[in-house]
């Protein structure tokens, strides 16, 4: 059986028809062609698929698409506004917080959740907040710097 769903994705109302078993990440990638959200594992462990569901960082591989009916979803594609990079996006570029780029969208989405709840995180708090996101390239060193950079800018202080 197919379910009609309507999801507000990055500010735009998107309609779709999905099977019950379809995952939100597939709905984003296959139906909406929002391929910035990646799939890195099968066990909800790696965080590459992290998006915001009603404002909270969520692993879109562990949510059914039909569960997102009526919800607001933000993906990496929705982070820049009016062509202006989100401070986290800018921070990742500025501090070389990415290499292959595959984990990056998930990292940025998780970091955004962290900074929303804790605008001035310590290094320790940043590292703990990233425990659900695996990066195999950077050793996390520059990811931490990138988030610190963004935190400073978002608090109105230039890094």
């Amino acid at each position, binding site marked *: 059986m197919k379910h009609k769903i309507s999801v507000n994705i990055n500010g735009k109302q998107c309609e779709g028809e999905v099977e*019950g078993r379809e995952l939100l990440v597939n709905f984003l990638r296959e139906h909406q062609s929002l391929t910035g959200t990646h799939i890195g594992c*099968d066990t*909800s462990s790696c965080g590459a698929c992290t998006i915001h569901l009603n404002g*909270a960082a969520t692993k879109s591989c562990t949510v*059914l698409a039909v569960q997102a009916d009526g919800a607001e979803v933000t993906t990496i594609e929705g982070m820049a506004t009016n062509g202006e990079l989100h401070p986290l996006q800018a921070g990742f570029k500025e501090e070389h917080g990415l290499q292959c780029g595959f984990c990056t969208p998930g990292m940025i989405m998780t970091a955004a*959740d962290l900074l929303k709840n804790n605008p001035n995180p310590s290094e320790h708090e940043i590292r703990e907040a990233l425990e*659900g996101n695996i990066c195999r390239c950077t050793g996390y060193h520059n990811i931490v710097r990138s988030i610190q950079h963004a935190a400073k800018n978002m608090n109105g202080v230039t890094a």
Partner: protein
Amino acid sequence: MIPLSFNYKKANSVDEALSMLTEDSKVLGGGHSLIPALKLRLNSVETLVDISKIDAIKGINDNEKSVTVGGGATHASIAANSALASAAPMMAEAAHTIGDIQVRNMGTIGGSIAHADPAADWPAVLLAADANVVIKNKDGQREVDIDQFFTGFYETALAEGEIITAIRIPKTGFNSNSVYEKFKQPASRFAIVGVAACGEMDGKTPKSLRIGITGLAERAFRPMEVEKALIGKELNEANIDAALGNIADGVSVMADHYASEKYRTHLAKVYTKRALLRLV
């Protein structure tokens, strides 16, 4: 990764959910235990009844004698709740150690204890807290004492066709002095050993003491002999060491490539001691 096909039904109320449950159906709460198993096709289900949209079971209510945590309350909302922070600080402490930010945002306490993973954090905490589990079925509502709730390996007192609607955390002298200590399996973030402890203290001596241990055995349990041995005794290293000898009595200790039976048992002692010393 995509599950085998199933029927999806969204429930708008607990009663509606109960009416949707059939023999081969499962309840979808936060989904963070169930969906991964379905994706790997290690599990399959005919009908999935989604209770994640029922607002009535998501709240955390501060009552006179207890704090009532909705079965649908997320780990994140528990971690951030101020009533629980004073009534049972180990709740927030444990909530912070579950999974990761994303998992805490979606995973629910009701889903977790219904699943009864032998290495999950909540069972240890709720055992220590002397909680009550509020369960609804088609015939009405019942409350199960937490000591009767976890019955075995992934087994609970929850029957088919029932839903956990709330967990009551009594406001007691012991819960207000409570801690959670966890030794994490570094990949899964589950507990190799997790110890919740709470006690009402008279100086350095507990007047009451409850301990819940997860990860060690096939189900979370209370080491009753340890509790008994230490009530009325000063919580110092010597007394605790003396009491910990039979911590694993009556349970079968689990083993995997992260921790053998011997090492797990040792860790349980170390972590119980650490938890108890923090009560002072």
